[in-house]
């Protein structure tokens, strides 16, 4: 299992770096998806299968699909690749590199100290996750749900029609009436057969 952990972790790091340096947006997104899948494998290996499944379902399967969807709609071509190339000059790497280097030093220090929790302390069952979420962490869950509700209301506001549906329909009906007058208004009475007793 330890080998699987290191392989998955290495894939995650390499895929993330390729995602950052990639020029083609869709290819970069694919690397990000691979990175998320690798992280899911890491979760699974260290004994959190439920989190691993949710990582795949929510991040890789839903959020990233939306990203790909939006990028597809923008329909970026060769032009975007050359623009990206112009933006990604060596100079802009300095800031992130310094920050990431500091983090790396910190990780190296922690590892050298021999700290950190043991890997694979035991399997965390889905039931335990649920009990903890709705027990000690219930406030966090509630706050997250409020945040999502705010997002939902905001999306509804942005997506709402400014003109009510009925007005659009009225406008369309008026238009068709003017374009092609109804037969019964032109020739009243003639289209109805005489009623036989």
């Amino acid at each position: 299992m330890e080998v699987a952990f290191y392989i998955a972790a290495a894939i995650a790091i390499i895929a993330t770096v390729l995602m950052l340096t990639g020029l083609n947006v869709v290819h970069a997104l694919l690397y990000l998806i691979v990175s998320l899948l690798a992280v899911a494998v890491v979760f699974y290996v260290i004994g959190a299968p439920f989190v691993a499944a949710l990582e795949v379902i929510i991040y890789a399967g839903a959020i990233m699909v939306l990203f790909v969807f939006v990028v597809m709609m923008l329909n970026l071509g060769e032009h975007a690749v050359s623009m990206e190339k112009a933006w990604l000059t060596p100079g802009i790497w300095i800031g992130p590199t310094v920050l990431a280097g500091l983090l790396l030093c910190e990780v190296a220090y922690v590892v050298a100290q021999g700290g950190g929790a043991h890997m694979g302390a035991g399997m965390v069952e889905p039931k335990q996750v649920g009990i903890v979420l709705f027990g000690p962490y219930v406030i966090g869950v509630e706050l997250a749900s409020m945040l999502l509700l705010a997002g939902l209301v905001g999306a509804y506001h942005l997506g709402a029609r400014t003109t009510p549906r009925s007005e659009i329909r009225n406008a369309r009906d008026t238009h068709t009436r003017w374009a092609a007058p109804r037969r019964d208004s032109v020739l009243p009475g003639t289209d109805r057969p005489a009623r036989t007793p």
Partner: protein
Amino acid sequence: MTSPYPMFSILGMLFGALTIAAGLIWLERRLLALWQDRYGPNRVGPFGLLQVVADGVKIFMKEDWIPPFADKPVFILAPAIIMLTALLSFAVLPVAPGIIISDLNIGLLFVLALSSLGVYSVVLAGWSSNNKYALLGGMRAAAQMISYEVFMGLSLMGVVLQAGSFSLPAIVDAQRELWFVIPQFLGFVLFLIAGLAETRRTPFDLPEAESELVAGYHSEYSGMKFGMFFVGEYLGVTLISAMITVLFFGGWLGPILPPIVWFLLKTLFFISCFILVRASLPRPRFDRLMSWGWKVMLPLALANLIVTGALVLAWR
């Protein structure tokens, strides 16, 4: 690994799933012909059974053309994803007691995760083809599959609540007294509709609607790459039918006949239902499909989940 010979069961499952998926092509053509008062393929071999072999040979011989304007790596990757995700899902499928490749304790979530990854195949195929019709098909697929996935997962949570586990063998065992289709009838109907949408079968085949989009997302595909989309679709149908059997119709449970026969019979019945649906229903308009998913199916799935939760809580 629950079986004594893991390699044996993996090979058996792979061979079985692929054979059934290939056989389905013949079955679908014959059944559609039957319902449309025709004969269907009946020339090659007994009852036309070897038609699939003939088609397979033909499709392998065809030129495998990659359009020069396509995004080559993604274009090649896309058909592989659909086969991979469909075949991987069979790993957690319990065919009979003890006959399962891997009894994951999150089996059901594993299947849902793979079905949500399956979207990429269609979306990337549509994008990488660099063709307007393919792109439209891919975008429809993305919108449709995300919308229907949401309540697909929710419609199954009632079953999970009643069985108390995500593990598929445990869910089958929980149905010894009563199949879940009776207490979870609404969940079953919702899952059936979501399953049709996930496999992009008629009436949910908007991503490849021939009458408006040429062939949708696989317009540019030829040869065996197209064949992989084709077989992938039938693998999806087999998988969803098997899932319906396992989750709602007691899996391998049944009297007299051996368990594996019961499982196969039930699965075959639902596969035939899928084909009958294709033979009888027209395609809806795309915006209606979307609003139906979000405004009708999702609230129903949520209501089903809340009522089931309340009843399970009251029962204990």
